[in-house]
């Protein structure tokens, strides 16, 4: 089963994303901060990571950069989920190495489509 790591400090979003992805047949691990996401990804690299950008302590951007700089996780597909929709924010997200960028409020159905698309690109 395809494993997805979800990191978001907002419990409602975290549970919702996990719920929707599990419903779509993925095996989801959810954590509530950036450091936990980094630790989990290094311990057992998932097939894809969904990161909230604004988390206390280590942000999703920081986690994204760390994952890209680590040989064992540098190829992981990463999707950023964020309320920051300015062009500059999107640029920073992709600059950090994200494969996709989803802006909140988001459509859960679209999230699943984007996850599947990024995974398909990765496998191609």
């Amino acid at each position: 089963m395809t494993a997805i790591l979800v990191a978001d400090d907002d419990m409602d979003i975290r549970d919702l994303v996990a719920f929707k992805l599990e419903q779509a047949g993925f095996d989801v691990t959810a954590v509530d901060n950036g450091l936990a996401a980094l630790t989990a990804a290094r311990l057992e690299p998932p097939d894809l990571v969904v990161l909230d950008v604004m988390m206390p302590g280590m942000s999703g951007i920081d986690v994204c950069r760390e994952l890209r700089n680590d040989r064992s996780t540098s190829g992981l597909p990463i999707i950023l989920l964020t309320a920051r929709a300015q062009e500059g924010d999107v640029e920073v997200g992709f600059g950090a190495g994200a494969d996709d960028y989803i802006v909140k409020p988001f459509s859960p159905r679209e999230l699943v489509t984007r996850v599947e698309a990024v995974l398909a690109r990765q496998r191609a």
Partner: protein
Amino acid sequence: MTLADAATATIYVLSVAAVALGAVIVFGRAARRRREERRARLAAPARKLLLAIAAGDDDPDQIDELVRLPDEVWTAVDANAVALLNKVRGEARAALVVVFERRGAAWRARSELHRPDPVRRARAADLLGILGRRDAVPALCDLLRDADADVRVVAARALGRIGDPEAARPLLESVATRRREVPAHLAAHALAGLGVGAQPALVRGMDSPREGVRAVAAEVLGLIGAVGATGRIEAALRADPSTEVRVRAARTLGRLGTRTAMAPLLDALTADHLPVLRAEAAKALGELGAPAAVDALTAVLGDAEFVVAHEAARALLRLGVKGRAALTSAREGSLGGPRRIRTVAAAHAREALAVAEIDQHRRTLAS
């Protein structure tokens, strides 16, 4: 009573007070924990249903189940439900709205708008805004004059979210009352949410005798892209008695980017105006992106007012090859005029070009 007796009594009283306070804190925490545990127990099954609906499941049975939940259980998940309404869009949001509507949340919220407790009034206004209830617009407009400042802000935000242009005039008027006003930037944000439908009310607002109203109207006309109001904004830039309004008019002309804005902006750049207006005009000329403004902007690169020269240099960066050529020329000291002015112009040009170089480098690294 001796001094020693008094000290002993004081220590005794303080000790008893400390123990009592400790007990209150411990029992208070325990009670709160019990309440939270009970709330979590009640919420658990409802939360699962809520997540299913928020995930986009439009299963009528699940919606019915959520609608039929006892009030006590719904109260336990109400805050989560409202939070999710703000965080999802599309079918998921529509399904959640159905649940709220069928539970009578909008009707209840409307009745809460007149409660004595400001927190309840604010929550009700917020929910009506989230649900996009146009029928609540008059009641929310009344709340713009609420005695509580937070309620006024929440009402303004709710009106912006609903997006009914009928709210434009009350929102505009809410910024300039002597008492019970809404902060101008929040009112402007809400007005921007009304979109182009607010244009007629905003144009009328430009004729208001109150400076605050005219300033917000000028700003918001730019935010909503009211190209049709360009003439009125140009007139404000030329002749409004308030500098604040003229500054905002200049900014708006830059945002709208119409060709006719060039002449009044070039006029506002001249030395007989206040530096704050000249700087905004320089910035707006950069936003317009018209190479025809290069000479005028180059002429103020060595201006004695730092902010004017600084904005002129930044604006030149945005005017393509001709603008960059003017900056390079100024950096090399090739412009005419007294040495002091050439030195100032060279410094501003150097800074602008350096910033552009750093930006380019950053973009290269990011790609």
